[in-house]
């Protein structure tokens, strides 16, 4: 096609107006090809199949009116310039259009061909400029991230060398060291570790900024993480003479989170709290739930430090922020710790905030989502905005050959779970977190978005893999049953989250039924053996 030809997609339902615009366009100096449709839906369909130079858009269409019209066009094709052609001279609407990214707003009845031609040419140029600016910004960000990732890699190499030789000396491998020398070496090692932490934070913050930070959520007991974090920071607190207490709630529901990342956040916040609390002060780490917010678990870290002023409070989670009040606290890092915490919590779809009054200590609080089957299932059972066509529930039973099992049965179960997780399609199937045991038989459930035939292939693979493992600590037999999941209320009229919920409900019902049957048969076999 001739490069000079301007391809215009005209979305206009009034035949008279359409003819007028077409006439004005062909009267112009440069060659133009006009494709005219009279409904928004037809316009969007045309945009899907080919990209015009410009869209001329009426705001009074049979299937869409007003601001919604240009919003939908731009949402569909953000890179195509849009010029609104309106029957009315509405300054407010025109401003709204331009603010949302429309290139121009023209009124139909005072349209000359010269005027229209120029408007189109400028619209195309402006859009192209915007586009190249966006690309340049993206490239710049990418370059910066690559640079930081390269720098952090290069810094690690000499740091590793320093670390190795200092520890060789400290461990006495290079010969005996005097107590004074050992003390000096420990100071070097502390600085090496600080430097190492900074490099790690730098890379982590870069990852967060470029959307490459990942979490691997699982079904976790929050209380255990609280205890773990406190145990890790206890020596630091004791060294400084700061009390460290924990508060847990035994009725707390399981959460759905990446345990390593949550631990990282807790450790970071605890470390800060201890750092800013004077000797004889106290730090409290607490996990709790709030009745008004049943979908979340709350973790708070409270200290008796000097508190945070309102200005610092507003900025404290920002990248590279350093509290000017805390400069006396020798070397305090890059100011990335809280930013990384915020990003980790954000990836968990939780919230993080601080409440504090100067002189009164501070409380950092964050929330984590409570484990919900529907939420877990959503990414594997949906595809392109709809529900996948069919599901099956696989029940995998592991029974030890000897009863009671020999060796470490708990370890065997964990090993089997990991094997099963490696056998499924990560984006289509979900191995549910283990749900306790019935006697010595361990049951795993897998929700698979595949038909019966494919899930048959998967079960064969799982069985093969489990049987092939030579070093399973306890030998066991594997039974796999497959049941198709029936959907009661799935249909186009029901919103997607509700459809997912109904899959989750159905799966839960089936699992509960299985477990009841197992318990009944366990009781029965016990009675029989008596």
């Amino acid at each position: 096609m001739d490069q000079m030809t301007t391809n215009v997609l005209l979305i206009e339902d009034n035949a008279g107006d359409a003819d007028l615009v077409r006439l004005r366009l062909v009267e112009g100096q440069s060659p133009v090809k006009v494709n005219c449709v009279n409904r928004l839906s037809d316009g969007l369909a045309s945009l899907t199949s080919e990209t015009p130079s410009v869209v001329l858009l009426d705001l009074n269409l049979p299937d869409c009116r007003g601001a919604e019209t240009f919003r939908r066009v731009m949402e569909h094709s953000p890179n195509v310039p849009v010029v609104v052609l309106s029957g009315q001279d509405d300054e407010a609407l025109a401003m709204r259009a331009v603010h949302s990214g429309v290139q121009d707003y023209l009124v139909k009845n005072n349209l000359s061909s010269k005027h229209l031609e120029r408007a189109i040419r400028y619209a195309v140029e402006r859009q192209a400029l915007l586009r190249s600016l966006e690309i340049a910004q993206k490239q710049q960000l990418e370059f910066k991230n690559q640079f930081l990732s390269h720098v952090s890699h290069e810094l690690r190499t000499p740091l590793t060398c320093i670390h190795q030789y200092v520890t060789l000396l400290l461990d006495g491998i290079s010969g005996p060291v005097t107590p004074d020398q050992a003390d000096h070496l420990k100071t070097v090692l502390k600085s090496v570790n600080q430097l190492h932490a900074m490099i790690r934070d730098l890379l982590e913050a870069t990852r967060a900024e470029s959307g490459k930070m990942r979490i691997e959520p699982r079904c976790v007991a929050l209380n255990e993480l609280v205890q773990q974090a406190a145990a890790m920071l206890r020596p630091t607190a004791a060294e400084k003479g700061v009390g460290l207490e924990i508060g847990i709630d035994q009725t707390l529901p399981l959460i759905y989170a990446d345990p390593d990342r949550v631990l990282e956040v807790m450790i970071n916040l605890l470390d800060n709290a201890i750092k800013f609390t004077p000797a004889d002060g106290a730090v409290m780490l607490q996990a709790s739930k709030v009745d008004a917010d049943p979908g979340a678990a709350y973790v708070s870290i409270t200290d008796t430090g000097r508190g945070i002023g309102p200005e610092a409070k507003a900025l404290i989670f920002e990248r590279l922020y350093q509290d000017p009040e805390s400069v006396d606290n020798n070397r305090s890092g890059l100011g990335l710790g809280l930013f990384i915490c915020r990003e980790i919590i954000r990836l968990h779809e939780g919230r993080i905030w601080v409440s504090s009054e100067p002189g009164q200590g501070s409380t950092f609080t964050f929330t984590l989502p409570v484990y919900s089957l529907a939420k877990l299932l959503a990414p594997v059972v949906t595809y392109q905005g709809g529900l996948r066509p069919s599901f099956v529930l696989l029940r995998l039973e592991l029974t030890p050959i000897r009863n009671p099992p020999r060796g470490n049965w708990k370890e065997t179960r964990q090993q089997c779970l990991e094997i099963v997780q490696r056998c499924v399609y990560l984006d289509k199937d979900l191995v549910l977190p283990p749900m306790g045991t019935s006697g010595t038989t361990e049951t795993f459930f897998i929700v698979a978005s595949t038909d019966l035939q494919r899930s048959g292939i998967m079960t064969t693979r799982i069985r093969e893999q489990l049987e092939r493992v030579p070093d399973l600590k306890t030998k066991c037999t594997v039974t796999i049953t497959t049941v198709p999941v029936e959907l009661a209320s799935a249909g186009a009229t029901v919103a997607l989250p509700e459809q997912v919920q109904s899959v989750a409900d159905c799966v839960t019902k089936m699992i509960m039924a299985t477990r009841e049957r197992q318990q009944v048969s366990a009781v029965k076999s016990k009675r029989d053996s008596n």
Partner: protein
Amino acid sequence: MRRPKILVVDDDPDLVRALRLRLRANNFEVATATDGYSAIAAAQKERPALIILDLGLPVGDGFVVLDRLQNSDALAGVPVIVLSARDPQANEERALKAGAAAFFQKPADNDELMNVIRVSLGPANAQPAPWPS
């Protein structure tokens, strides 16, 4: 008992020297190589019980070495511990898939590294060996 031999592969000679000192102090014999090509040659000649492997190497990087080792009948069973400055998010899974037994990012914790070496070598070495006085 014969001391197990460990092959250390890294292009930084200073780091190789430090690792050699530490491993010897932990009762291991040590062989070394500083590029991918000589790593393979050393593995064939020395028959180490375990290999510590850097990823960024001249003349065939760590992944090439892993691939060669996996495709050699004589060497496929030798556990390889990757010790690299590279980002684990991009390299750990790839290294484990290519046959590595473990991935450590530099600088690694010495105690953890020694533990994984002993576990990889099998039950006979699971207990920390006493240091020479």
